[in-house]
């Protein structure tokens, strides 16, 4: 409505003097309201108490491993010790307290209390001795960890090693082959077989087929036995592993026996 009235009247139409006055009053009112608002806001802002907020340090414990999250944090300011004169404590003479009539009961209860205290002390000593033994045992059995723990790029939701490495370790663990079993131990380093395997998501070995057999039937037989033993993984896989190529050879063993 205001916008319409602010519009300049189209040419050829006569201007209304009443409307001009209304516009002036409107503008003045707007200005005054604005000034009032500014004044109020300024006063309020000035009167608002200012606080020195302590700096906030965000430590991303999820995405990055932090060895010492408090590292780099400024030391809290310690107020300088105020040297106020301390009044000397007035010496109080000990007063002689006369024994009350209920002395035997009190003595008895004191004895009981002393017994409780000595028991408690003994218990405390035993507990301390036990704790010392535990500490000594822990120290004796502690394995020093010198390697860094965790993965630098880990997100915290890792299930450990990758599925392939897991499957590799499992099959290798089940693969038993004596070097004396080979037809020609001299060719140990060159003996190799390729097998395509498929593991379902449930960890079941669904299929395997030899893509390349070694020329040593005993070697191939040992692989078949290993795969028969590996037909069920101890746990499920996050994804189905389809047509994984497993290369069986004896390079590491040959290197070891060289």
């Amino acid at each position: 409505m205001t916008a319409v009235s602010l519009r300049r009247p189209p040419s050829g139409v006569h201007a209304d003097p009443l409307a001009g006055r209304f516009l002036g009053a409107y503008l003045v009112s707007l200005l005054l309201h604005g000034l009032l608002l500014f004044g109020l806001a300024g006063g309020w802002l000035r009167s608002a108490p200012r606080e020195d907020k302590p700096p906030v340090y965000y430590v991303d414990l999820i995405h990055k491993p932090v060895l010492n999250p408090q590292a780099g944090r400024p030391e809290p300011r310690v107020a300088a010790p105020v040297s106020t004169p301390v009044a000397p404590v007035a010496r109080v003479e000990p007063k002689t307290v006369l024994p009350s009539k209920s002395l035997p009961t009190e003595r008895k209860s004191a004895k009981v209390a002393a017994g409780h205290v000595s028991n408690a002390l003994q218990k405390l000593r035993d507990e301390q001795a036990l704790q010392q033994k535990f500490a000594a045992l822990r120290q004796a059995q502690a394995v020093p960890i010198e390697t860094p723990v965790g993965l630098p790029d880990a997100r915290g939701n890792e299930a450990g090693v990758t599925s392939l490495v897991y499957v590799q370790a499992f099959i290798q663990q089940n693969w038993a082959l004596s070097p004396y079993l080979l037809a020609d131990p001299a060719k140990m380093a060159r003996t190799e077989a390729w097998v395509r395997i498929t593991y379902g998501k449930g960890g079941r070995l669904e299929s395997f087929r030899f893509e390349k057999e070694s020329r040593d039937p005993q070697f191939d037989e040992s692989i078949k036995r290993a795969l028969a033993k590996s037909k069920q993984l101890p746990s499920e896989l996050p994804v189905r592993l389809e047509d994984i190529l497993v290369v069986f050879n004896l390079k590491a063993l040959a290197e070891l026996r060289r």
Partner: protein
Amino acid sequence: MKRFCSLLFLLLTVCWANGAAAAEIEISAPGEQAIPLALTRFLPQTGAPAPAVAEELNAALAADLDLAGLFRFLDPQAFLSDAGRIGLFSTEVDFDQWRLLGAEVLIKGVYSVQGEQLTVEARLFDVPNGRLLTGRRFVGRTQDVRRIAHAFADLILKDLTGEAGPFDARLAFISNRSGHKELWLMDVDGHNPIRLTDHRSIVLNPDFSSTGKELLFTSYRAGNPDLYRKEIFSGGEARIAAYSGLNIAGRYAPDNSAVAATLSRDGDPEIYLLGRDGALRKRLTTSFGIDVDPSWSPDGRQLAFVSSRLGSPQIFIIDLASGAARRLTANGKYDATPAWSPKGDRIAFTRQEGGRFDIYSIRPDGSDERRLTFGPGNLEHPRWSPDGRFLVYSSDAGGKKLLMVMRADGTGARKVTAPGGDASHPAWSPVW
């Protein structure tokens, strides 16, 4: 546009190939270098139980398989109920029990004794796949129980490795248990020794023919070290070489067509080629210094021997066709008694170092020399088993000479001689 599309296709192909290559696992060593084996106790099938028979069967079989080095024996204490059940067929075996124990191969068997006759049925099963690998029925006398066990051990090695074991064979050796150094024969595990000669003199250096039915040896029976040939089964014996001087270290050619021996008829000990009847065919070496201890290559074309032509005794190889000799060992000061393996891949020999002999092996091309033994005592006269898996040798550790056997890589050494007298100069027969 077409070029862009082909480039895109190429990139996608490369990416797919990379992705495919990533799904690959390499397993470059087995998790275990021995096959988990469950050896169950042989059970009586019919008739009265004969615990001694079962005990001896199991003991002999276990000793052979242990020497083979292929297996890790599972503790019989851990066996479950299936070990107490007769199972000659795969349908009768509860493989789940054995899988639970981690066994990969399983041996089961039964026996029956009827009078003097012993019948043994033995089986080898593949546990992960639940199938029968091999089995056999053995019939013999009760005193053949060890031989039955050796034969089954050979069969197991045959099935698992493709090559039969050497356990159902004999060792010829020299022993003085009768008061003189005579030729003896015994099982590979030291049982059932039999004396073959009664020369009441000194007998040395036995060697089997490739058929295993004949033996060559040297005897001082006639006062001179002469070469003799003996038929084992008939006991027939003939002196085939009685040339003046030494007639020692006779070795049958692999095809039994000839004999290589050391003769000193011309003054210097040299290697000669003789016929099976001892007729002189050819002098093979003509060098200054001794040439002794010939050993045939499996193809019969070369001989390894000991020569001092360059000063100290060293191993040399001579090519029979050309007569050219080459030095094989160069690292020792005193190398002796070469023995060419039946597979031809290595030559075992002894080397004296620090006043003691130890056994070494080397490839025929002079490479990959390996020390196999580290004492104690003098370890000498190595000879190969017919399959080339084992070496038998003599040892004087502890003051008494005895025979030892070990794997070809020097592991698993153990005594094989039965008590009584010294034993030396072994030779391993072919499998009978």
